[in-house]
């Protein structure tokens, strides 16, 4: 048992930083300026606020994990809530992960179909994508972490593509600061925009694999703030470059930012961006799929690699499901609310933990 435990410690600090960072940046950031558009020009600083919220909500996650350093959230649920309730909650999370993954893939494929491959069906690309995904995930969490590091360095160069828009944009759009009054607009922006930075909550599942668990909070925080900075750059440049109408109506505004420039040898940089984006999608989805697989393991109390394939097949059918686009949107939207629940979940667990401890002391 002891050798098994030492083998489980796989993730060094760099892995932790980039796992948090890369998982956060998926399809969300592509349409982040649009999601925040209820605030108009004042949206530019929202990502910084999100960063603060993320840093605060990260703390309870790490705290509850540090009480059980060798267990992931699925096991913690079972320990604290009892076997059956815990399992029920776990099932809930697994379903949410599956729908969430399907949502991200479907979103990306929708983008590919509407811009790059207009005359093709997406079945082929989805299959290829899932095959690659299964390959990455079957390598375990360390292989995902390494893939995340690779993704970061391959795609960070894309920030350069926004400089044309930056040059053309107008700084005066930032003024007046905080030009919004309605609380409703603010709430709407948080509700729709916060989704773009989800991903750091997965630390509750890979925490047992971290070597230096005491510093996990700090490392994850670094990852979160790298992502927040990228989100901030994106929204700030969008605010400078677009009019308020455009912020609201251009669906993938980041790609339109890329369109602002041109090299002498390549004109449509946005197509370049879309294809590179597949790395970002893969790194996000891989981490979620790995967590879903862990969840299935804990539900059936038996580990098998076959679950991974079964999950991939389920995801394929969710993406290709024969329902209307409206129903799909609603389903993915619903999954997002559950994702918010997952962020607040550790607070509930902490309460349960405290109550149990009290009881033990009394006994």
């Amino acid at each position, binding site marked *: 048992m002891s050798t098994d435990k030492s083998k489980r410690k796989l993730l060094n600090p760099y892995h932790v930083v980039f796992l948090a960072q890369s998982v956060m940046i998926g399809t969300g950031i592509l349409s982040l300026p649009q999601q925040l558009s209820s605030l108009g020009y004042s949206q530019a600083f929202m990502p910084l606020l999100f960063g603060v919220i993320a840093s605060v909500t990260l703390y309870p996650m790490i705290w509850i994990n540090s009480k059980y350093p060798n267990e992931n959230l699925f096991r913690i649920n079972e320990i604290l809530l009892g076997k059956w309730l815990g399992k029920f909650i776990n099932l809930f999370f697994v379903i949410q992960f599956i729908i969430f993954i399907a949502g991200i893939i479907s979103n990306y494929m929708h983008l590919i179909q509407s811009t790059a491959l*207009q005359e093709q069906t997406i079945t082929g690309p989805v299959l290829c994508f899932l095959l690659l995904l299964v390959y990455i995930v079957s390598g375990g969490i360390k292989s995902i972490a390494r893939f995340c590091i690779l993704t970061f360095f391959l795609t960070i160069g894309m920030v350069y593509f926004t400089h044309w828009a930056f040059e053309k944009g107008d700084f*005066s759009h930032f003024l007046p600061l905080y030009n919004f009054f309605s609380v409703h607009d603010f709430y709407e922006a948080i509700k729709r925009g916060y989704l773009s930075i989800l991903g750091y909550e997965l630390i509750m599942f890979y925490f047992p694999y971290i070597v230096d668990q005491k510093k996990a909070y700090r490392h994850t925080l670094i990852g979160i703030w790298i992502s927040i900075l990228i989100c901030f750059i994106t929204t700030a440049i969008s605010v400078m470059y677009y009019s308020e109408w455009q912020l609201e109506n251009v669906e993938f505004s980041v790609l339109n930012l890329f369109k602002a420039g041109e090299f002498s040898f390549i004109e449509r940089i946005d197509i370049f961006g879309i294809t590179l984006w597949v790395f970002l999608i893969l790194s996000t989805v891989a981490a979620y799929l790995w967590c879903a697989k862990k969840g299935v393991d804990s539900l059936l109390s038996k580990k098998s690699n076959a679950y991974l394939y079964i999950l991939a097949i389920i995801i394929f059918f969710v993406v290709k499901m024969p329902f209307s686009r409206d129903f799909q949107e609603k389903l993915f939207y619903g999954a997002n609310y559950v994702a918010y629940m997952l962020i607040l979940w550790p607070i509930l667990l902490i309460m349960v933990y405290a109550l149990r401890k009290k009881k033990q002391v009394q006994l």
Partner: protein
Amino acid sequence: MSKKLLCLMLFLQLLFLVACSEREKKVPLEDVGMVGIIAFDYIDKDSMKLTVAIPQYSPEAQRSTQTFTVVTDLVSNGIVEIEKLSDKKIVFNQLRVVLFNEEFARQGNVRKVIQHLYRNAEVGNKVLIAIVKEKGEEMLKYNYPDKPNINFYLNDLLQPSINTAFNPNTNIHDFMYTITNPVYDPIIPFVDKNSDKIEIKGIAVFKGNQMFELINPKEALIIQAIQGRKNLAPLDITMEQGHGKEKLLIDLVENDVHIKSNKSMTLPKLTISIEIKGTLSEYKGERENDLFTTESLAELEKDVNKELEQDIKKFLDKLNEWQVDPSGISEYFRMYYYGKWTTEKKREIVSKVAIDVHVKTSIISTGTLK
């Protein structure tokens, strides 16, 4: 062993199944008609004439451009009609220029058409827009004897060069940005066919959705200067400031602009300070023989300042009278206004604003000859 066999079986099955799959119809490149220019001519409220120019690469063809014209109510409907006439599949990936005739710009809905193109993922955002005086169809169908191909000709003409930097060179993004931004009114270059050539005649200023007035290139230069463009076209100045009639041309103009507003919505006031630096490349007038000393040049600079201040003020007052704001000066009031900014507020500000212009010219050199 059985695994290997299974793999082999699967592979063989897939190999043979390929024949059963439905073949996707891919159009080879030589069968694709890449639209280079698309022109819209106004007919009446519900219909328009749509003309496309497609470069013809076939060596046997007599003309280097294919043109098709249809009458239609919707843009995409027109494209379908053109596809029926054409021997090729029509795509927009190589679209470079969109033309509207003057009547369309004055009566029709330019925004609707451009928005349709903006939505289309095939079309880039750098497609240039221009307004044609008479008929776009004629311009595309005319045989320019010394030009290889209308597609390249028109695109090159509308691209900015330093001498035509006055050209606002409006592309799809710029148009959508200015028409949806309540601090701006769009401007679009205005071209006309002049015997065998196409000429940029002026700049069309929009008021809301419709074309409103035509201004001359020199005035458009002022708009560009106020918008903060760093390099400007050569300044051609004619002045009468106590030294008889003088004409001069300042080249390689570097521009630096500072605009300050008094932040008041009721008594708006705007101070525009423009600093320009350039070379005096030509001078014609009374002072021709005594422009060798720094004192005399300083004197000339002063006169130029005065003249430019008057010109700019006159032009801005004209715009304010029309209540249009192509240079976006109302942005300097929006910046300090809490609440939602609307087009009505822009019109209100522009009609009330008092503008103070300060120009500081410095002539860096007079060329290499003493």
